[in-house]
C-alpha cells in the first residue's frame, strides 16, 4: 500500500474524531433543536448563480418555501439570497457546557441553513450526523480499549503462568467465542431496564460491547506472551532477580504492543457497527440524543426510506470510517515499519 494512502486514512480518522469532539463548533445547530415548520426539508442547494443568471463570488442558499398543497414539499424562494458565512456567532445552541460553543464554523444570516436537509421533526441532519459521530465513533473506540484491556490481562496471565490458569482462562474465552455476539448483546440489553438516560445507555452499550469482545485479543496476546517469555533476555532478567510483574511490564508488554495496535484497528470499526446495530434496534442510545444508529432507525418506516434519501447520510458516513480503519489495520499487518520505523 502506498504511504500516501495510509496518511490519507490516518488524516481522515483524525479529522472525523476532531469534528466529533468539537461538534459544538462544526455543527450549525444543536442536535435537539426542532424546526417544526420544516419537516423533511431536502438539502439546500448551494448556488453561485442567482435566478437572474448573475454570478456571485460568495456562495449562497435560497430559503425553502413550504407548499400548502402537500406535506413536506418545498420550493426555493428565489426572491432573496442568503450568503453562506464562516465563523458566525450564534447563541442558539440551546445547550450549555464547555464543548457547546457560540461560534460556529458556518451559517447564514437571517435564515435557516439545512445543508443535509432535516428529519421529521425539522432537526438539521448535518448537525445530528456531526453530534452523532461523537457518540458512535467514541463508543467504538472506548469499547475496543476496554476489550483490549481485558484481552491483555487475561492473555498475559494465561500465557505467562501457563498450566491450570492457562487452561481455565482459555476455556473461558472459548465459551465467549462460541456465543454469537449479536444475540448475546440483544439478550443482555433486553435483560436490563428499557428506559434509561442517554448517558447511562452510552456506557451500557460500551460496557456490553467491550466486555463481550475480550476473547479474541486474549487468545492472540496469550500466543505472543507464550513465545515472549521464552526469550533469552526474559530468562536472563529472571536470573538476576526480576519479579513476575516487572518481567510482564518491562520485557513482555512491549512485545504485545504491536498485536494490540493491530487488534484495535480491527476491533474499533466492528464495535462502531455494533453500537449502530443496537441503536438501530432501539436498544442502544435513545432519542433525542443523536447517534448514527438511532438516526437510521427512522428508515425502518417505508416512506422515509423511499422519499427522503438524505436520511441515509449516517450510513454514508460509515464508508470513510470503515475504509480508513481497514487501510490502517491492513497496513499494520503487512507493513508495520510504515508506522513504527522512524527512519
Amino acid at each position: 500500500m502506498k504511504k500516501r494512502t495510509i496518511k490519507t486514512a490516518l488524516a481522515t480518522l483524525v479529522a472525523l474524531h476532531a469534528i466529533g469532539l468539537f461538534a459544538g463548533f462544526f455543527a450549525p445547530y444543536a442536535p435537539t433543536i426542532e424546526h417544526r415548520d420544516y419537516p423533511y426539508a431536502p438539502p439546500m442547494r448551494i448556488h453561485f448563480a442567482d435566478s437572474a443568471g448573475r454570478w456571485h463570488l460568495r456562495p449562497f442558499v435560497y430559503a425553502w418555501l413550504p407548499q400548502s398543497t402537500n406535506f413536506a414539499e418545498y420550493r426555493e424562494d428565489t426572491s432573496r439570497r442568503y450568503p453562506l458565512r464562516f465563523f458566525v456567532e450564534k447563541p442558539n445552541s440551546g445547550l450549555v457546557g464547555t464543548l457547546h460553543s457560540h461560534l460556529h464554523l458556518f451559517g447564514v444570516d437571517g435564515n435557516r441553513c439545512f445543508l443535509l436537509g432535516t428529519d421529521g421533526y425539522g432537526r438539521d441532519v448535518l448537525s445530528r450526523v456531526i453530534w452523532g459521530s461523537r457518540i458512535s465513533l467514541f463508543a467504538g473506540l472506548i469499547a475496543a480499549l476496554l476489550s483490549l484491556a481485558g484481552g491483555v490481562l487475561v492473555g498475559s496471565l494465561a500465557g505467562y503462568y501457563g498450566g491450570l490458569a492457562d487452561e481455565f482462562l482459555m476455556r473461558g474465552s472459548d465459551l465467549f467465542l462460541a456465543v454469537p455476539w449479536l444475540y448475546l448483546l440483544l439478550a443482555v440489553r433486553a435483560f436490563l431496564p428499557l428506559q434509561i438516560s442517554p448517558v447511562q445507555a452510552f456506557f451500557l452499550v460500551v460496557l456490553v460491547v467491550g466486555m463481550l469482545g475480550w476473547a479474541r485479543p486474549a487468545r492472540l496476546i496469550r500466543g505472543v506472551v507464550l513465545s515472549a517469555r521464552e526469550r533469552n533476555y526474559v530468562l536472563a532478567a529472571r536470573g538476576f532477580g526480576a519479579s513476575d510483574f516487572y518481567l510482564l511490564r518491562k520485557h513482555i508488554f512491549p512485545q504485545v504492543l504491536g498485536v494490540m495496535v493491530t487488534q484495535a484497528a480491527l476491533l474499533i470499526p466492528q464495535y462502531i457497527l455494533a453500537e449502530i446495530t443496537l441503536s438501530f434496534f432501539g436498544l442502544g442510545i435513545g432519542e433525542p440524543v443523536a447517534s448514527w444508529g438511532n438516526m437510521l432507525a427512522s428508515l425502518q418506516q417505508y416512506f422515509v426510506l423511499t422519499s427522503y434519501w438524505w436520511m441515509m447520510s449516517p450510513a454514508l458516513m460509515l464508508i470513510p470510517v470503515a475504509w480508513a480503519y481497514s487501510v490502517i489495520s491492513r497496513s499494520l499487518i503487512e507493513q508495520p515499519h510504515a508506522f513504527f520505523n522512524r527512519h
Partner: protein
Amino acid sequence: MEPLLKVEELCVRYVSGERSDFRALRNIGFEIYPGEAVGILGESGGGKSTLARAIVGVLPAGACTDCGSIRFQGRELIGLPEGEMRQIRGAKISLIPQDPSAALNPLLRVGTQVSEVVAAHYDWSKQRCREAAKAALREAGLENPLRIYSAFPHQLSGGQLQRVVIAQALACRPALLIADEATASLDTTTQAEILRLLGFLRGTLGLAILFISHDPAVLAEIADRILVFYAGEIVEEGPAPDVLNSALHPYSRALLRCFPIKRRDGDWPVLKAIAGNSPDIHQRMPGCVFEPRCEERIEICASHSPKDAFPCGGRRVRCFRYEQ
C-alpha cells in the same frame, strides 16, 4: 572450610511437555568453596545448563527438581518461597546466560538494564542505582561507561555486550557467579579478554565461579577443579590439570581426544571423534550411561550402574574400572 554451595543427590526431571519423564539430571553432587572456580565440561545436551538453571531456580517450563538438596551459605534453596529466592538471584548468585546478544532486551538501553538489577535488590534512589550501574560497567572493563550506559544493545560489539552482562551479574556483589557458556559466542581474542577479566574479578572480589563450557581449553584457563558431565551425570571430578592431562573416565578421555591440547610430553594428540550419539532422552537403559559408546566396556557395564569411586587424591570417577 564451610562450602559456599553444596549440591547433594540432585535430580531434575521433566514432568510435562514433549520431553515428559526425561531425567535431565541424575544424582548430582558437588561442592564449591568461597573464591573457587569450578568448571563443568561436557557436550551439549548433557544437562550442564539445566544444572545452572536448577541452582538459581529458573528451570524451563515442565521441569522440576525431583529430589536432592542445594545448600547455599548453609541455607536450603530447594523449596524456598519464590519471593526469598528472588532476593538471592542476582544478589547472592548470578547467572550469566548463554549468548549475551540475546540476553539483553533490544528495546531498552543497556544502562537501564544494569541499574534495574540493582534496583531489584536495594531500596535505593534512581540516582544511586544509576551510579552503581556505571561503577559496575567500569568494573567490567568497559572504558567509556557513560557512553555505554545510554547505548542500545545493537550498538555494541559482542565483547562489549558480554561485559555488560558481566556488569549486570556483578552489580550486586554476588558470592557465586554461574557462567553458562559465557564465552562460546565470542571470537578467540575476546574470549581470552573475558576470561582474564573473570579471573581478575575473582581475585579482587573473592568471587566463586561455576564456569560451564564445552571447551577444555577455556576451562584450563580459568578452572581450579573440573566436573565432567555426561547425560545428566557427573562422571568425573578432579583438579583441573589432573583431569585435563590424565583423565580417568573413558568418556573424559574420549572427549579430550576431540580437542587439540598439547600433551605434557610435547606431542600433539591424534584427534578422534566419539562414536555414536548422546543417549536418546526417551530411552532409559539399565547400566552405565556411557556404556553404548564406551570403548572400554566390560560385562557388568550393561546391566548395573557404577558407583562413585575415589581412586586418588581429590579425584572421583563413576566407572566400574576404578571400583574395588
